[in-house]
């Protein structure tokens, strides 16, 4: 059978979910944000909760997430997404409420908001994109930047004496009784993306069970900020980010229940 004969509607096995709008994403070629957006959209479509989901977009490259996923959104001041999500969820307890935040947004200016939302046990999902850098503003050091990693503000590499040590937030919040599910995933291969999608789904499901806050960290790339090609950035992430931010579940209060 020739290729054109295979391309029939009845043979279609994968295509863009209708929950992603037709807007062309403003992200750099190969940026992890686009893959994570797609996974979020697919989960919401599969769960049939398009009109029951509210996203909170951050300040950072993903500020325009509301242009791409066709659900209700609010856009928070820098780092304040967990505070805004708290209000949205408490006023609309039946809704699925999630924040989508970068590491500059969540681990730097927004550290207080995320830690207190976790301590309060807000029933929301936090999707945390850890690319180890401030992408939007031109690749400055973030709290999550690895030691030795070059950024525009650490041109000779991050030095612990001068710049302190990387912030590893997931195990910190795992200590708090208000968190229900904490996991680290990635989206650089199809297998990894499938696992990340299952984690996002679990986090959204937990958010209406009243068990506390779910936190899905995606160890990601910012190939523009890292000054690598998208494929090289994925390789660099596996070699350098994964040892510091290992993939896998950190906490799951409903496991085996």
């Amino acid at each position, binding site marked *: *059978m020739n290729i054109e004969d*295979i391309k029939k509607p009845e*043979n279609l*096995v994968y295509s863009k979910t209708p929950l992603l709008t037709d807007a062309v994403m403003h992200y750099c*070629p190969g940026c992890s944000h686009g893959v994570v957006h797609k996974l979020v959209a697919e989960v919401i479509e599969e769960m049939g909760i398009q009109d029951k989901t509210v996203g909170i977009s951050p300040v950072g490259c993903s500020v325009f997430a509301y242009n791409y996923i066709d659900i209700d959104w609010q856009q928070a001041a820098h780092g304040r997404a967990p505070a805004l999500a708290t209000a949205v969820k408490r006023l609309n307890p039946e809704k699925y409420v999630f924040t989508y935040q970068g590491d500059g947004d969540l681990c730097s200016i927004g550290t207080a908001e995320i830690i207190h939302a976790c301590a309060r046990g807000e029933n929301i999902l936090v999707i945390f994109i850890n690319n180890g850098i401030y992408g939007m503003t031109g690749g400055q050091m973030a709290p999550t930047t690895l030691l030795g990693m070059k950024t525009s503000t650490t041109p000779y590499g991050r030095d612990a004496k001068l710049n302190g040590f990387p912030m590893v937030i997931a195990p910190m919040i795992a200590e708090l009784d208000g968190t229900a599910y904490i996991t680290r995933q990635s*989206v*650089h291969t*199809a297998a990894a993306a499938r696992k990340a999608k299952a984690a996002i789904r679990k986090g959204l499901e937990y958010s209406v069970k009243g068990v506390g806050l779910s936190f899905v960290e995606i160890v990601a790339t910012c190939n523009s900020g890292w000054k690598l*090609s998208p*494929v090289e950035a994925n390789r660099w992430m596996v070699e350098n980010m994964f040892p510091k931010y290992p993939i896998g579940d950190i906490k799951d209060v409903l496991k085996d229940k």
Partner: protein
Amino acid sequence: MAFKGAIDIDKEKCKGCAVCVANCPTASIQLSKMVNNKGYHYAEMVGEGCIGCSSCAIVCPDSVISVYRIKI
């Protein structure tokens, strides 16, 4: 059971990041020599080896790939 596949690529939306190329198990996708209207070398299917596994489409940040699959 074996599968044969085919992909469609929205070439004007493709940004030529090549993440799909690195993820294809059968080397059935590559960047074209031509560029699209934005100047990107877009992804294109090559040869007859595609098995319709969807790996390329799943990792595509811009969701420009559709996948078709038949049993043979």
